[in-house]
């Protein structure tokens, strides 16, 4: 029973981890807590539907179109919103990010309707039994894609000069510009990367939840996962996501599935009260 719960919970955890990574990436790089990010996740999934309905594409090509469109969306967010606001206060930038998410949400509500859409699973949702534990191929696909994306990000940040330059700019903007990094290009890369991450997460999570304009509430789960991980550590975001998924599943099974969401927000409050530096974090050292 416990093994079953843990196996199933990894699925949600993997998606939370992706969303948390987006939050942390944007925060580390630009200082903005992107409260519209959950809506961007929803919008990413809708992009697939729009590509299917509008261009008449089959599912997989529509996913590719959605990913390309989210690259453009990321560039648009930076070029049209965050770059013009680069000298504005952080609060103004955070408000702008929230408003942008709301615009996306109300756009899909107006354009695609307020009700839920069916969204295809990547693999069969029929469970098969492996050593007595029921696993769902569709869920395995979610975990697999998430792990693949995490591995790619790891390679980018640890093994390439460009990835290191992004980390450098996140750590110290002045230092980055002194070694010749164009910090505005790094910001552009971060917004594009996080928009693509949002779409990947949206495509993965849409069949699990129902795809409606309000699916963006999932963003708060990703936010909670990021807080659990300390909010400024990429590995922390991944661990936070998995931990949140597991805690939620345990609570849902052993306490009450109706209380599941309340418990995850309770965790958010508890972390902020008891361990604001996150599970494995040191508090961000402020420069003097």
């Amino acid at each position, binding site marked *: 029973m416990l093994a079953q719960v843990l196996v199933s919970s990894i699925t949600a955890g993997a998606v939370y981890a992706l969303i948390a990574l987006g939050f942390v990436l944007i925060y580390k790089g630009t200082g903005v807590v992107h409260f519209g990010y959950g809506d961007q996740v929803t919008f990413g999934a809708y992009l697939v539907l729009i590509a299917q309905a509008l261009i008449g594409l089959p599912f997989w090509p529509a996913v590719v179109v959605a990913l390309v469109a989210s690259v453009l969306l990321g560039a648009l967010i930076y070029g049209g919103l965050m770059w013009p606001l680069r000298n504005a206060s952080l609060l103004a930038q955070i408000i702008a990010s929230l408003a942008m998410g709301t615009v996306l949400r109300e756009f899909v509500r107006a354009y695609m309707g307020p009700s839920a859409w069916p969204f295809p699973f990547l693999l069969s949702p029929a469970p098969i039994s492996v050593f007595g534990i029921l696993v769902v191929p569709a869920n395995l696909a979610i975990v697999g894609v998430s792990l693949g994306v995490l591995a790619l990000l790891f390679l980018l940040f640890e093994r390439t*000069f460009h990835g290191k330059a992004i980390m450098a700019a996140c750590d110290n903007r002045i230092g980055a510009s002194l070694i010749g990094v164009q910090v505005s290009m790094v910001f552009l890369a971060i917004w594009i990367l996080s928009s693509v991450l949002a779409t990947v997460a949206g495509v993965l999570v849409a069949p699990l939840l129902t795809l409606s304009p309000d699916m963006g509430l999932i963003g708060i789960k990703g936010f909670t996962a990021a807080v659990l991980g300390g909010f400024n550590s990429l590995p922390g975001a991944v661990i936070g996501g998995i931990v949140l998924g597991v805690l939620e599943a345990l609570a849902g099974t052993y306490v009450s599935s109706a209380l599941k969401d309340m418990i995850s927000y309770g965790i958010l409050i508890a972390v902020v009260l008891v361990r604001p530096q996150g599970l494995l974090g040191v508090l961000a050292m402020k420069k003097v």
Partner: protein
Amino acid sequence: MLSVRDLHAGYGNKTVLRGVSLDVPRGAIVTVLGANGAGKSTLLKAIVGLLPRAAGTVTLDDKPLFDGAPDRALKAGVALVPEQRELFLSLSVADNLRLGGYLRRGAADIAAESERLLDIFPSLRARLAQPARTLSGGEQQMLAIARALMGRPEFLLLDEPSLGLAPRIVEEIFGIVRQISAEGTAVLLVEQNAAIALDVASSGCVLDLGEVTLRGTAEELRNSPIVKTSYL
């Protein structure tokens, strides 16, 4: 030669530099002395374009060094080690060093260059895997200089490398400054510690309230009554 002519710069509508001119010949060590708040750091930031210039020019061999992002100054061969060092504190010492070669990232000799610098700064070698924030002040200063040298600059601008460091470390760092200059890199050295700066420099000037009030060879400066009373 790196030439600064009639440079004006400041913060917002506060003018700090009021027409500064100076020359740094290739391979030379030139020092800028001045009290706290004289505008020394502002001068170096305005030279590399970290701070916009209000008026005046900076040229490198008569070619203008464009105002704007420091990456253009760096490409032209001018690197700044700022007063605050601006290291990547959460990244490893090795990454900090490697990132210094960001603009030369295609080059085959990046690894060889960082080996060469680790020979010049041996105390960094034992710390390669540590995050930069765990280094002592002296080691951080050395890493900041090494990171700048990874870009193979022809002109290195040093902003108070002695600040807050023990005399023994200051000695070591100035030994390295001499070595760098002997290998052909010119150094523009900003210091409050005039005695040690005039020891390594061949010429220099005194900056006071954003204006050059005195200039000459190191010998002339050392013997000037103004420098003797105010800066030594």
